[in-house]
């Protein structure tokens, strides 16, 4: 069935009673649920679509006699809002209540434009070409500070005469000078754990092999000799990078304990318990006759089974 149009005449079984002035939409089905008929000379009536028998181009034929329609209560405009005042999306999409199309003329210049798709694509391509050469510079701009050369300087961290007992972790704090981008050089606090090791512990740490430290090209930077009775561990937990402590544990005795996710390492640096994927990271260490200790401040990526140096 056609949709009733505005201004269509409304015909009852007996006579023509007026014309359609408004239509009412159902907010859920988005269909026309009622028409509003302006009855010749006696106000408006709201007529449900159920009463409508046929709709033609300019006529709405009702099933009821005019007396029945006139007996309906008058239409109450204040019970409704217009579709401009309510937000129900797509409400009007398939309703064609206006008599015919409503048009505006196309400007003359627009008529001669043939290749619309071409111009649309052309615009997009130019936009893309503006963006493209920016992408790489922006990336490089942001990447500037990300990678830095390793620094293999020896740093003085203190004197081993501070260590009173063998096989016990002692924390040494030291300052490291760093230079970040344009900023003046400044000092940050770092720490390293040093143990004076008994021969048994040394055996376990070194497995009878000297420990070599190499740079990226494989060149040896330093070798920790297996008979030097001191071991130094980086203060960074190899699990996810927190700082750990030397603590008494209920069953495991004296251990390195990391409070973050509770990784536990023995004096050898091996993992005894917890989530850490590898043992503590031993650092290159030099002990002078005076007892002065120096280390190379290396930092390794946390969370990997193998050591990956990042500083």
């Amino acid at each position: 069935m056609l949709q009733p149009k505005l201004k269509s005449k409304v015909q009852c079984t007996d006579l023509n009673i007026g014309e359609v002035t408004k239509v009412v939409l159902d907010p859920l089905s988005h269909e026309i649920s009622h028409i509003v008929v302006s009855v010749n000379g006696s106000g408006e009536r709201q007529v449900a679509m159920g009463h409508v028998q046929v709709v033609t181009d300019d006529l709405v034929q009702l099933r009821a006699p005019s007396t029945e329609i006139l007996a309906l209560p008058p239409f109450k405009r204040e019970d409704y809002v217009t579709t401009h005042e309510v937000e129900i999306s797509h409400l009007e999409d398939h309703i064609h209540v206006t008599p015919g199309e409503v048009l505006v003329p196309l400007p003359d210049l627009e008529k001669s434009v043939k290749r619309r798709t071409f111009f649309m694509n052309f615009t997009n391509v130019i936009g893309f070409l503006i963006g493209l050469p920016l992408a790489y510079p922006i990336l490089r701009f942001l990447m500037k500070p990300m990678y830095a050369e390793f620094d293999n300087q020896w740093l003085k961290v203190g004197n081993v005469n501070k260590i009173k007992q063998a096989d016990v972790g002692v924390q040494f704090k030291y300052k490291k000078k760093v230079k970040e981008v344009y900023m003046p050089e400044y000092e940050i606090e770092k720490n390293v754990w040093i143990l004076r090791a008994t021969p048994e512990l040394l055996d376990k740490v070194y497995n009878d092999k000297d420990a070599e430290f190499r740079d990226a090209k494989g060149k040896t930077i330093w070798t920790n000799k297996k008979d030097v009775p001191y071991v130094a561990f980086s203060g960074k937990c190899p699990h996810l990078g927190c700082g750990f402590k030397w603590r008494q544990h209920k069953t495991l005795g004296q251990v390195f304990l990391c409070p973050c996710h509770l990784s536990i390492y023995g004096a050898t640096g091996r993992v005894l318990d917890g989530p850490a994927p590898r043992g503590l990271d031993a650092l290159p260490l030099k002990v002078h006759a005076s007892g002065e200790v120096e280390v190379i401040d290396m930092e390794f990526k946390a969370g990997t089974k193998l050591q990956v140096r990042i500083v």
Partner: protein
Amino acid sequence: MNIKQSAPTTVHNPHQPSAVEKLVAFLDERMGLKEMQAKMLNEPLPGGSRWAYVFGSVLLFIFAMQALTGMLLMFYYVPTADHAYDSTQYIIHEVDYGWFLLSYHFWGSSAMVVCVFAHMSQVFLWGAYKKPRELLWLVGLALLGIVITFGFTGYLLPWDQRAFWATLVGVEILDKAPLVGDFIARFLKGGPTPGQMTLSRFFVLHVMILPAALMALAGLHIFLFRVAAPAGPFKGTVEEIKAKTDYFFPRQIWKDIVGMAFVFVGICALALWEPVVLLDKATPDPGEYHPEPEWYFLFYFQLLRLKLFAGQLGQFIGAVALPVVFMVLLVALPFMDKDPERNIFKRPIALISWIAIMVVIVLFTVAAVINREFLD
């Protein structure tokens, strides 16, 4: 308008428009204000207003307040490694009401996380993510990511021990992503280790990029919501729902504003009772401080302590695979769940999953709190 033309004999004029009415008429003529207002307020809510629907609006309110307090904090805060801590202390101890604005901003971020969680739970339990609201759900997930990133980046800004260590561990977790992890971690840190560049980057994210992204996506979210129309209740016949339908104004707006007032008072109370106190200035040595993330990340932090996630593989599972799989499931949810049934009591898998997630979060948060004592 024909007052001037009317005959001088008409002394009695029934209605002279006031200055305000004239101004409104002026603006309305140029902007279509009245129609716009009508459209905004006259949005049918199938099945009527509900308290359960307040969370989205409350989130917008919290965000507006975060923007306001955040802009004020920026008048004094200096985002450099040598001044961030001192400028924050200055805000807390010297600037009039600085402690309050900072504490409001701090607790506001917690409120935001709680409300996002409540809002997500509501739309999940109501089955509101189902067709035709898939995109709405996806944009919602992007907003969730933004809210979490807000928390993570904001946490570093005071540059105290808490800030520094939470960030360090957080970035190490990102580093564990395959292929791109190292790049992302260095990109965020602006170097191999955290320092000034990290602070600059987090600052720019926190005060520029994330707010812009949140505004854009929240706009899209609400647009999509309006296009799709509210989902309404998950049970009831068409007639029942139609009978209870009303517009956004006034009943839902009333509920929303009460929700906002409630959240406002709650945040103020927390700011008064538990104002922000900084720990020592950040250093790469934690000293006696036991690093811990913000409370809403605690359950995940405790999860990573599990034996299950030990070792490199376990770590990969816990720090990368688990969150990624969880996110992928959330993204896929509206596309996998094609069943139009929205009643949560007829969707046992959905209900059980939601309860299970709640239980895990609560249990692990409690475990993390209990663990604190065991550490000292």
